[in-house]
């Protein structure tokens, strides 16, 4: 278990080094995208003037509040990543993000795509919205707010030591969720026999 303090844009080399169980604190540009935003970004192909290369993609629908024309992050924990499972491979084909941040893990389609594009999936504690808001720092921009509404919009944040983020699916095909799943399946079978 190694601790890393990373800054965006994240290098390919560091991603290769990251292993399941490593801890990351992330600084730099992180943007949110849930189901609707994935669909919208795939439909449009890009956001003019917004380069996603090396950035963190965050599965999150935050609570935001506007004060004197300025947006503040109120609470911004991760959403269930599995909802994006079927969309993520196409997303990674198109957008060169290096880190996916979410909760609950993703499936075989994403795991394969992480390998193909040298990307890692990291977990942040679900429900820890106030703690996440602190780490995500400031709002840099927002896209699709009118079309998609607050939770589904693409919010761009300037994060500072956002974490702890646990590497739970690395770029070599190893998933901590698969490990846990095998163990809980064994435990279930044993419990049902008792």
């Amino acid at each position, binding site marked *: 278990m190694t601790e890393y303090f990373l800054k965006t844009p994240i290098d390919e080399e560091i991603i290769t080094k990251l292993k399941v169980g490593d801890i990351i604190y992330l600084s730099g540009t992180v943007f949110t995208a849930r189901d609707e935003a994935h669909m919208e970004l795939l439909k449009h192909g890009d956001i003019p003037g917004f380069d996603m290369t090396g950035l963190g993609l965050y599965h999150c629908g935050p*609570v935001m509040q506007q004060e004197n024309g300025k947006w503040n992050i109120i609470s911004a924990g991760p959403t269930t990543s599995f909802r994006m499972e079927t969309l993520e491979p196409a997303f990674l084909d198109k957008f060169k993000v290096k880190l996916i941040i979410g909760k609950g893990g993703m499936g075989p389609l994403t795991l394969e795509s992480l390998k193909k594009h040298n990307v890692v999936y990291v977990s942040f504690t679900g429900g820890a919205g106030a703690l996440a808001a602190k780490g995500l720092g400031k709002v840099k921009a927002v896209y699709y707010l009118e079309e998609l509404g607050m939770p589904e919009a693409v919010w761009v944040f300037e994060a500072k030591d956002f974490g702890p983020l646990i590497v739970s699916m690395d770029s070599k095909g190893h998933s901590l969720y698969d490990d846990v799943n095998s163990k809980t399946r064994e435990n279930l079978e044993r419990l049902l026999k008792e």
Partner: protein
Amino acid sequence: MLDEKMLIARLIKGMRDGAIELPADVTSKLKDAYSKETGDIPKMQFKAILDNIKLAHDEGLPLCQDTGIQVFFIKAGYDFPYLNDIHKAIPVAIEKATMEIPLRPNTVDPFTGKNPKNNLGHNMPAVTVELVEGDSATIHILPKGGGSENMSALWMLTPTQGFKSLKKKVLEHIQFAAGKPCPPTILGIGVGGGADMAMKLAKKALLRPLDCTNSNEEIAAMEKEILDAVNELGVGPMGLGGKTTALAVNIEYTSRHPATFPTALVVQCWCNRRAIIKIDKNGVMT
């Protein structure tokens, strides 16, 4: 007399407390779970959870960005005179609370996905009224998140299989749910009635503090048996492996038709937010 403005303010305070403060019984269980874990990863999850509870309290921020659907359970005496006032005040309070706290606008049209941005909509707000003896009322506010609600289930079990079958279904389901409902969870289980009553009882079971078991000792023993087995699964906090998968199992029941065994499960995330407002016959609120 119950003052309309004060009632709205009290309801907003209830929703604010619900979004920001975790009840003491929940925090206490989370602290116990933190001390029990030995692995680095589950320990880190519980630390983040406890840090988050403190930060939300200190800074007055919602614990979780999913501030839920505002669910109200009202238990009112037959002689309680203000049900009509409460009925009118709740939607007004929800709309204001959405702006002021703020809450995430979470109600969307099921088909068009359109979001009115005020946490209201067709057949909303979600209010259940139960009439009982007496002249006072208790309002429970349960902000219910989507990730945990997605893991709800209803099984129409074979009556001869009974509890054995119920336990098997719950264990299989929690293994399948893994990290999705933000474990450690609270499992509300409703048994009997019909499909609808079982579901309602399961959700109502979540209102019970985690340090209280069912008053029927046999049912309390079933709650413990399921809780112990669920924790032996090893799903752990956030599904990353560990010793605590659920903080409590609360069962509520009613009679069933002899040919049926309706069993409902409503899963609540660790962020088991609840608020209570009491109003007496003179309109005094606590």
